[in-house]
């Protein structure tokens, strides 16, 4: 997500520069008008002015030291240090990560550090890449790095100044380590808690000195525990699903079973007789059943008799949609990349001893299915605003959307962000989605706080899928085995179209998120043509962990193995010779290959495959080992992953993200798919949308490239290369490329 902005930032050499450049954006007034008219919208680029920052090469003195440390750090007299996270933690560990950055510069003791979610506030807590408060695109560490280091250093300086004044000694004689402020010469010391009240009265210093990497005591250390590791093992961590406000009622919503359908008529007589059902309301988004508890609400919903109007609904099945996509793929699309002359090269290569290879790839719709089903509690406030308890991922968007629903100001929409039970992109939507639904129900039923709960079926059948994609690729190696031409046509829905992201993300008919990883591939192909069709459908789609790279990296890396085979080259060697100008990609490829024992002989039925890719400015390579048994059934035995994401704040969390990313990628490659028959989703729960389970999970070895480059992200980049590495491992055994996902379609799992 927003890869374009991030890459633009990276090109500028200093990631936060982007915040100082206003991007094309609707004004807040026009935004509110759009929301009032019923459209979801997002302001991009309404940025928080950032202090002027020194270039990375300059001495580690950055000033002035604003943002104010009190936005991010609360030091209490009880000696706890609470770091406020403006980002959502949905398992990726960002509360721990942000706290680590602060604690490092503050010289806090890790045992005194706590984490909490900051209140929603676009002025104070915008994501500098987005212009509004929100989490996504593996940006959280990258966009918080400077401001939190400065905040920590400023707070430390204020503690030092307070201690120096009390002791009447020069500040230069005061040291801080592990949460203790000392004056060595006199043997005196204070805790942070001793100094906090007085330190808060001091002005924020205009200049602060940041640590050199060699002096880090917390950043980069593998032995810090996550701040949520206890509360999430004893049942005390509170998710939105666990919020219980006084008088709270539970709502479930009956939505059209076909995408784009609307309510024609409702018979709610039976539903109203279900014990515990309080109210049934017909709203533009569906029919809401409000009840004393979740069981009564779902029982009431089952008793509804609704006739749906499918006049504007999607009535095709996915087979019919794919057939339409294939027809589209016969025609040229919007141009995403065009250099040299691929078509001519295919002709000349074929005539001169080279090889031309064709491949058609099919990627299904995929649900995110986070373990915590979507839900939110909304309580109306007397001022016309409301308070929302949710695993809110785009707080800034949700404030604006809900303000549109309620007719209040965005700042009257208070959000109490909660730990989120997974997201994988699902909780970040351009139109507020389930939170807007909850606000609509609360507005229609103002008597009590409303908890809107999605069931798992609502989630699996509810859309916002990774789009169905078709890729057709023709590529050629010449007689010497050099990759000389690549032509790729991509067909799939744009989830940026029709949202306010469109202005930035869709250029000349090309949604960058549909072609990222393909049109900009690192392999130096002299003749490259990539084009795109973005057919529309009422089926709703959304970014899904690693976004366009979920399909582009797969198609690219599987084709590369086929080309290497045609050229008679080793898959790692073939890639290495093409990555001479990409040292970080080459670095992770070599590291993964070396650690996996690439080139060592394998037993019969065993296969080994590789893939390498850049996404979100992070570089990842996977080597996968598989067993193909006598019946052709595949088991993934081991995955070796190498990652270069710059300076690593918490190595154990990066490791966890690589383990989880591997499972995410493998699980969906094996059996994950959403299909439709006559517009009705065939799957409904984990008995049909089949998740990765314990017995599917391979061993995962993670190797992190040591680096002091600016930190990037790790939540998404661990996904794109694992499935093609597995596919290439199977290919090495069977000689059959796996080009239709999931693999279960080929009967191999």
């Amino acid at each position, binding site marked *: 997500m927003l890869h374009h902005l991030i890459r633009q930032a990276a090109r500028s050499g200093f990631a936060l520069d982007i915040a100082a450049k206003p991007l094309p954006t609707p004004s807040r007034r026009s935004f509110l008008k759009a929301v009032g008219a019923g459209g979801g919208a997002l302001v991009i680029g309404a940025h928080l002015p950032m202090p002027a920052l020194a270039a990375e090469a300059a001495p580690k003195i950055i000033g002035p030291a604003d943002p104010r440390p009190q936005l991010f750090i609360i030091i209490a007299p009880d000696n706890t240090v609470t770091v406020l996270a403006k980002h959502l933690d*949905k*398992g*990726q*560990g960002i509360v721990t990560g942000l706290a680590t950055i602060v604690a490092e510069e503050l010289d806090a003791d890790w045992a005194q550090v706590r984490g909490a979610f900051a209140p929603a506030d676009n002025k104070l807590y915008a994501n500098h890449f987005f212009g509004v408060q929100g989490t996504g695109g593996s940006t959280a560490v990258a966009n918080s790095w400077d401001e939190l280091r400065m905040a920590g250093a400023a707070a430390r300086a204020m503690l030092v100044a307070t201690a120096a004044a009390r002791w009447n000694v020069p500040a230069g004689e005061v040291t801080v380590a592990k949460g203790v402020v000392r004056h060595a010469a006199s043997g005196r010391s204070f805790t942070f808690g001793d100094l906090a009240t007085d330190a808060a009265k001091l002005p924020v210093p205009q200049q602060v000195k940041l640590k050199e990497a060699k002096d880090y005591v917390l950043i980069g250390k593998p032995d810090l*525990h*996550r701040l*949520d*590791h*206890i*509360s*999430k*093992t*004893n*049942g*005390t*961590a*509170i*998710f939105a*699903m*666990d919020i*219980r406000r006084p008088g709270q009622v*539970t709502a479930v919503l009956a939505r059209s079973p076909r995408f784009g359908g609307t309510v024609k008529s409702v018979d709610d007589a039976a539903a109203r007789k279900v*014990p515990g059902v309080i109210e049934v309301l017909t709203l533009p988004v569906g029919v809401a059943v409000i009840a004393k*508890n*979740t*069981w009564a609400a*779902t029982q009431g919903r089952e008793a509804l008799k609704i006739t749906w109007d499918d006049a504007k609904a999607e009535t095709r099945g996915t087979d019919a949609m794919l057939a339409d996509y294939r027809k589209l793929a016969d025609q040229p699309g919007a141009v995403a990349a065009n250099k040299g002359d691929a078509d001519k090269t295919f002709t000349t290569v074929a005539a001169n001893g080279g090889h031309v290879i064709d491949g058609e790839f099919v990627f299904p719709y995929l649900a995110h*299915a*986070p*373990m*915590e*089903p979507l839900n939110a509690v909304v309580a109306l406030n007397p001022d016309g605003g409301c308070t929302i308890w949710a695993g809110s991922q785009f707080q800034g968007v949700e404030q604006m959307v809900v303000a549109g629903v309620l007719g209040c100001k965005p700042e009257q929409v208070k959000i109490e962000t909660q*730990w*989120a*039970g*997974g997201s*994988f992109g699902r909780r970040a939507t351009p139109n507020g989605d389930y939170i807007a639904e909850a606000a609509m129900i609360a507005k229609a039923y103002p008597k009590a706080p409303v908890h809107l709960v999605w*069931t*798992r*079926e609502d989630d699996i059948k509810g859309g916002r899928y990774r789009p169905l994609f078709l890729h057709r690729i023709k590529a050629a190696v010449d007689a010497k085995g050099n990759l000389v031409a690549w032509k790729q046509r991509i067909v799939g829905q744009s989830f940026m179209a029709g949202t306010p992201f469109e202005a930035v993300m869709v250029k000349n008919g090309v949604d960058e998120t549909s072609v990222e990883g393909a049109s900009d591939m690192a392999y130096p192909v002299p003749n490259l043509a990539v084009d795109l069709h973005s057919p529309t459908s009422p089926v709703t789609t959304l970014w899904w962990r690693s976004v366009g790279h979920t399909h582009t990296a797969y198609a690219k890396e599987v084709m590369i193995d086929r080309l290497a085979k045609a050229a008679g080259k080793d898959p790692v060697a073939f890639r290495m010779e093409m990555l001479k100008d990409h040292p970080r990609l080459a670095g992770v490829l070599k590291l993964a290959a070396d650690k996996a024992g690439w080139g060592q002989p394998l037993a019969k039925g065993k296969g080994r495959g590789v893939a390498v890719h850049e996404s979100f400015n992070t570089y990842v390579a996977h080597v996968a080992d598989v067993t193909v048994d006598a019946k052709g059934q595949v088991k993934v035995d081991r995955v070796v992953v190498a990652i270069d994401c710059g300076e690593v704040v918490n190595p*154990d969390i990066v490791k*966890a993200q690589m*383990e*989880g*990313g*591997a*499972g*995410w990628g493998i*699980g969906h490659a094996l059996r994950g798919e959403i299909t439709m028959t006559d517009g009705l989703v065939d799957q409904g*729960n*984990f*008995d049909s949308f089949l*998740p*990765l*389970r*314990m*017995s599917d*999970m391979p*061993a*995962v070895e993670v190797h992190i490239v040591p680096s002091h480059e600016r930190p990037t992200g790790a939540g998404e980049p661990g996904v794109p290369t694992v499935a093609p590495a597995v596919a290439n491992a199977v290919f090495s055994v069977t000689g059959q490329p796996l080009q239709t996902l999931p693999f279960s379609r080929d009967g191999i799992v």
Partner: protein
Amino acid sequence: MISINVNGEERQVDVPGDMPLLWVLRDELNMTGTKFGCGIAQCGACTVHVDGQPIRACQTPVSMLTPESKVTTIEGVRGKAAEAVQAAWQKLDVVQCGYCQSGQIMSAIALLTDNRNPTDADIDSAMDGNVCRCATYVRIRAAIKDAAQTMRA
């Protein structure tokens, strides 16, 4: 009124007998450590113990429990296996989003109560009913082995 024993306490709830134990715990008794994930016994997020055996609370109508049935949830689970499992989970930082982990831990405690030296196949068999979308499976397996070692020591 239905009487049930949860974590050693007698509780009275005024609910229809077909209400699953999951919703009795979460909505009536306000014990939210046990999670709703799928509602059809396919994900294990709602795993609790009834008389020491792991069951899916979302598919257990409260009327199926007898007054003698002892329900144990993540809030009340105690004993050598519970201590070893929770300590191992914390030592290895198993959790990511954490939403499935109450159920994972309840299944792991049940496994280790019966079997202090589980093989990988035993772990697969005992834990395959517990889904983790963050795919923390590598660490869950390692934590079960770590806890088993603690219990054997």
